[in-house]
C-alpha cells in the first residue's frame, strides 16, 4: 500500500501517464474541492477588493472582516425555496445549470498545476479546454430559453453571440502561442504540459517571445477571455442595469449558485490557459537568470513565506481589532484563522512538501493575478453595448489576432527577415 503510494509519488508523472484510475480519481476530487474553495475565496476577495476600490468596507459582520460571508451565503442559497417558473420548460430549466457547471469543471482535467499536478496530459490539451469551455454557452442558451421570459431570452441570445464571436479571436491568439512551441524544436504541441516545457526549453515566457508579437497575442487573449467569461466590461448577458440579471433572472437558490460557481470556475479556467500559454505555467520567475541549487532552495521557501505574511497580517488585524465585547468572537476567530495559515506555512517548510508544492504555488499566484484584474476591470469600466461589443470582437481583435498569427509565423520561419525589419526600423 505504502509502496504503491510512494511508487506513484516518485514516478514524476501525471495519473493519466501513470495509467492509474485510482490516482486520477483522487486528483479529480482534490481539484474539485480546490476549485470550489477557490470560488469561495474569490467571492470574498471580489467583495472586499471591489468594496475597497469603491471606498467601502465590504462584508464586515459575518466572521472577522466578513471571512465567513461566502459560507453564510452558500448556506442561505442552499436552504432557499426551489422555484421553477410555471411556464418554464422544466427539464431544460433543470439541466441548464448542470451543463454549465459540468463544462466549467471538466476543463480542469488538463490544467497543469505543476509538472505532475494534472489529472492527465492530453496531446490536444488546449483544444480540449477550448472545446469544453465553449460548451458552456449551450447551458446559458438552455437557461435563457427554458425560463420562458423576456429578459433571460435576450441575455442568452447576447451571450451566445458574444461567446461565439470572441472564441475566434481567442483561438487565433492561442494558435500563435502554439506556433511558438514549434519554432526551435521543430515539433509543436497542443499539450498543456508540453507548452510549458517548450517555454522552459526556449528559456522565455511566450509573452516575451518575439516582442511585441507574443505580448500582443497575449493582449488579444486577455481581452477575449474577459468577454468569453461574460465579465465586466463585457458582462452584457447579465447586465443588471439592462436585463435585470440576464440569463439567470428566473433562477434562485441552489440552481443560481451553480451558475455562480460555473462563472467563477470558467474565469479560473481561462486564466489558467493564459498562464499556461504565455506566463510560463508553473515555472517560477527567472529560472534562467537565477538558476542553480541555491536559488532553487531560496525560491522554494517563498510559498511558506507568503503564507507567513498572510498569517502575520491576520494576527496584526487581531491586535488592531477594536477592544469591545461585541467584537470579541471576531477577534478570536481572526486569531485562529491567522494561526491556521501560519501552521499551513510551517507544513510547507517540510522539504518533501516544499518541493512538490512550489509548482502549484506559482501557478496559483499567476492565476490570482488574473482574478485581481477581473475585479479591477469590474470596478473601473462601464459596460459595452451589444453592437460595440461585436465590433470590438470582429473588427479589432480578429484582425489583430490574424496579423499577429501571420507575423509570428513569418518571424519564426525567416528569423533573418525579422532581423532585417528591425534593422530598417532602427
Amino acid at each position: 500500500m505504502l509502496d504503491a503510494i510512494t511508487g506513484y509519488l516518485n514516478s514524476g508523472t501525471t495519473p493519466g501517464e501513470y495509467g492509474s484510475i485510482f490516482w486520477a480519481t483522487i486528483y479529480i476530487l482534490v481539484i474539485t474541492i480546490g476549485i470550489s474553495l477557490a470560488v469561495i475565496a474569490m467571492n470574498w476577495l471580489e467583495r472586499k477588493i471591489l468594496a475597497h476600490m469603491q471606498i467601502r468596507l465590504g462584508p464586515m459582520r459575518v466572521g472577522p472582516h466578513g471571512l465567513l460571508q461566502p459560507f453564510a451565503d452558500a448556506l442561505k442559497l442552499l436552504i432557499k425555496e426551489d422555484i421553477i417558473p410555471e411556464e418554464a420548460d422544466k427539464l431544460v430549466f433543470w439541466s441548464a445549470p448542470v451543463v454549465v457547471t459540468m463544462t466549467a469543471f471538466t476543463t480542469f482535467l488538463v490544467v497543469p498545476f505543476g509538472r505532475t499536478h494534472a489529472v492527465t496530459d492530453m496531446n490536444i490539451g488546449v483544444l480540449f479546454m477550448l472545446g469544453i469551455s465553449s460548451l458552456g454557452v449551450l447551458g446559458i442558451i438552455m437557461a435563457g430559453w427554458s425560463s420562458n421570459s423576456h429578459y433571460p431570452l435576450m441575455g442568452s441570445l447576447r451571450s451566445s453571440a458574444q461567446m461565439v464571436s470572441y472564441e475566434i479571436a481567442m483561438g487565433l491568439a492561442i494558435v500563435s502561442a502554439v506556433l511558438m512551441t514549434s519554432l526551435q524544436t521543430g515539433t509543436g504541441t497542443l499539450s498543456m504540459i508540453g507548452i510549458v516545457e517548450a517555454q522552459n526549453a526556449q528559456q522565455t515566457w511566450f509573452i516575451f517571445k518575439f516582442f511585441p508579437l507574443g505580448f500582443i497575442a497575449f493582449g488579444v487573449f486577455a481581452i477575449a477571455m474577459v468577454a468569453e467569461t461574460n465579465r465586466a466590461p463585457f458582462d452584457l448577458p447579465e447586465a443588471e442595469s439592462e436585463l435585470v440579471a440576464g440569463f439567470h433572472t428566473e433562477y434562485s437558490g441552489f440552481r443560481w449558485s451553480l451558475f455562480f460557481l460555473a462563472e467563477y470556475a470558467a474565469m479560473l479556467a481561462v486564466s489558467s490557459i493564459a498562464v499556461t500559454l504565455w506566463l510560463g505555467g508553473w515555472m517560477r520567475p527567472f529560472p534562467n537568470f537565477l538558476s542553480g541549487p541555491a536559488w532553487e532552495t531560496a525560491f522554494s521557501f517563498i510559498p511558506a513565506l507568503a503564507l507567513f505574511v498572510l498569517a502575520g497580517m491576520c494576527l496584526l488585524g487581531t491586535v488592531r481589532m477594536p477592544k469591545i465585547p461585541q467584537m470579541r468572537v471576531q477577534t478570536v476567530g481572526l486569531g485562529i484563522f491567522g494561526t491556521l495559515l501560519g501552521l499551513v506555512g510551517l507544513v510547507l517548510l517540510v522539504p518533501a512538501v516544499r518541493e512538490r508544492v512550489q509548482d502549484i504555488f506559482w501557478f496559483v499566484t499567476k492565476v490570482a493575478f488574473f482574478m485581481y484584474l477581473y475585479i479591477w476591470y469590474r470596478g473601473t469600466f462601464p459596460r459595452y453595448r451589444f453592437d460595440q461589443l461585436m465590433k470590438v470582437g470582429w473588427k479589432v481583435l480578429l484582425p489583430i489576432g490574424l496579423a499577429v498569427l501571420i507575423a509570428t509565423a513569418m518571424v519564426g520561419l525567416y528569423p533573418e527577415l525579422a532581423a532585417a525589419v528591425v534593422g530598417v526600423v532602427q
Partner: protein
Amino acid sequence: MSLKPLLRKMFLVDLIKGLKVTFNYQAPSEAITEQYPLERPVIFERFRGQPRLSVNPDTGESLCIVCNLCALACPEQLIVVKGERNPVTRRKEPVAWTYDLSRCMFCGLCAEACSTDALELTQDYEMALYSREGMVLDQAALERGQEPTRYEK
C-alpha cells in the same frame, strides 16, 4: 487622425487612467463606511429628530402653556393638546398631549411655533419600533424621551 490620439488609443491610456484611480483608492484608510452601531454618526445641533417636551428642571412642571400653536402649525395635524387651567396657580396646564410620530415628517414647524420653547425636535434619531402602537407619544413619553428599541432575536 493625428498621431498623438492614435497612440493614446493604442496604448489604452484612457483605460489605464481610470484603472489608476480605482487602484489608488484601495487603501483601507480611504474607506468611508461607518460601522453604525459601533461608530455613531455625528449629529449636528440643529438636527430635527425625536420630539421632546421640556419641563422646568426646578419644579418639574411642564413648560407647555397649551396655547395650541403647535397643533395649528402642524401640516399633518398630528398634535393634539388638551389643557385645563390650574385653579391654584391660574396657569393653563396640559392634561392630554399626543404626538403621532408615525405621521411626522420632521419639518420643525411645531417647534418654530412654540411660544415657550416647550416643544423641540432633539438630536435623537433612533425611533424605529417593532409595532405602530408605540408611535403615538403621550405627554409622559414626550417628556421622558423615547428609549431606542434594542434588537431582539
